[in-house]
């Protein structure tokens, strides 16, 4: 299932997030990397150095766009200026698919710039799916939505998070960007079994997988993307590829970013699990 309609029938391997601190290394050393994920909003601008760097990167590498502020789950309509600029960037990068989060973050035109958790209700699922369809039809590129880490749950929720994710992606007929670190973080914060989450989602819709590190506090875990991936998250990754196949995999490292080689080496650990899965399938 790695190549499917939700990632435009591509077979991408292991990539890392493109970060400014690594630009010089990438452009001068030209390391072998299967693909880079870019934060769309960083390049939804009119000109200057960021777009110049992006153009140089695209001469050598494949990139996929990942957004942080479309807020599919916000009750308000999508921001037309956001959509226009996103489409402009999609045309520039020729990204095979676009991802953003299954969350909300704006209301009445005011932005929190955070990935706020959804209430797991049928009403919210319907509104979210409608917005995903609208954005996809406008962008004319497949969309996959990412499950977020959360620190709060709502009284009004009518289903589990994985049931809500399934409800949304089936109604919208879109893909899933399965973040196994976020599943782990939320499972610890809300006391559910993360393996059940992976077992219950529609695996045929997984377009891409995210792995990352996090920070543990006394009473909760925060999704900080500033550490290596821990073993329980790698186990969830093994579960995910067992169900979804060798899917495009991306390591996120956004804070206290180490050297390019350290980040890339951490991402390439995924190969161990991919090889084990291939072996198990062959036997």
């Amino acid at each position, binding site marked *: 299932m790695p190549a499917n309609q939700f990632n435009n029938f591509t077979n991408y391997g292991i990539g890392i997030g493109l970060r400014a601190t690594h630009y010089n290394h990438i452009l001068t050393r030209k390391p072998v990397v299967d693909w880079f994920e870019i934060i769309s909003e960083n390049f939804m601008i009119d000109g200057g150095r960021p777009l110049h760097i992006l153009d140089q990167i695209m001469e050598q590498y494949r990139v996929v766009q990942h957004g942080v502020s479309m807020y599919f789950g916000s009750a308000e309509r999508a921001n037309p200026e956001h959509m226009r600029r996103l489409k402009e960037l999609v045309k520039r990068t020729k990204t095979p698919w676009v991802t953003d989060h299954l969350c*909300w973050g704006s209301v009445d035109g005011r*932005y929190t710039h955070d990935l706020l958790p959804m209430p797991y209700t049928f009403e919210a699922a319907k509104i979210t799916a409608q917005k995903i369809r609208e954005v996809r039809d406008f962008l004319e590129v497949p969309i996959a939505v990412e499950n977020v880490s959360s620190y709060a749950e709502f009284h009004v929720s009518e289903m589990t998070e994985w049931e809500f994710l399934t409800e949304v992606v089936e109604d919208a007929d879109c893909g899933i960007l399965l973040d196994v670190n976020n599943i782990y973080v939320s499972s610890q914060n809300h*006391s559910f079994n993360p393996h059940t989450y992976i077992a219950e989602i529609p695996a045929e819709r997984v377009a891409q997988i995210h792995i990352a590190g996090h920070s543990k506090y006394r009473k909760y875990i925060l999704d900080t993307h500033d550490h290596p991936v821990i073993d329980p998250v790698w186990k969830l990754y093994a579960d995910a590829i067992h169900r979804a196949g060798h899917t495009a995999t991306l390591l996120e490292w956004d804070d206290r970013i180490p050297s390019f080689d350290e980040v890339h080496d951490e991402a390439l650990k995924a190969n161990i699990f991919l090889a084990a899965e291939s072996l198990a399938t062959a036997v």
Partner: protein
Amino acid sequence: MKLLNLQRRMARAVMTPLTPSERMRPAAANGRSMRAVAAEFIKPNDRLTSFERLEIYNRQYWFRILSSFAEDFPGLRAVLGDKRFDAVAKAYFTAYPSRSFTMRNLGSKLESWLRKHPSLAGSRKNLALDMVRLEWADINAFDGKAEPALKPEDLAAADASKLRLRLQPYIHLLDLRYPVDDLLLEVRDTEDAEVASNAFDEHRRRKRVRAVARLKPSEIFLAVHRLDFSVYFRRLEREEFVILSELHKGKTLSRAIEPAFRGSSIEMEERPSHVQRWFHAWAALGWFSKQEKNSSRS
């Protein structure tokens, strides 16, 4: 509870300013207990109350926007000092929560807001306003649009009485009461040094205070522009500034030159050579575009 209603409630709580010790306030703006507000829509768990779970998002919101704002306006921080800068930032975001999908635009209303609330900037109001204008222009020059540039030879053949030149969209012209360009460059130097040494903090603070303290009013004219993808501050003579500003308004070349020398101390016979030299420099820097239309700028 309907989705929109829940999101409005949560956003209101998340955007409420923190206490001085950076915790969620015990009471909402309407006086209601935040514990009661949180309990109405957020479930507690075996480790955290509803209030504590909501507080995670409340703190994250403020930490994120204040940190991004401080990165965008290090010069304003140097002018106001850390304490006043924090107070200004909190008051600004309370009055003007972000209305853009990108945090790049967090400072877009800062100048107009500060003009309406000058007392928040204390005795250095004019210096603070100049710095805000410069730092916002710097952000816009960094990623503003660039049109294909006119070449010097394109200008040579043109009729000055009919020629309308357009400035590149990324260029911003500023008339300032203080030489804040020097101050901002000094602040950035100290920020860079801080990265090199964690023990630099106190020294940096003292150096910043000295730099601000010795800054005297002195009118300057500035073009904030871009060359090879880096932003530069170029000081202009008053006459240069007027010509460029008039061109930006859409005046023809001859009409733009006329007001520039009103009250000018430049001798009449020297003016043509000045104009020639300026145009040569502007064209070499690629400041004129071939586009008929130009986007707005300050």
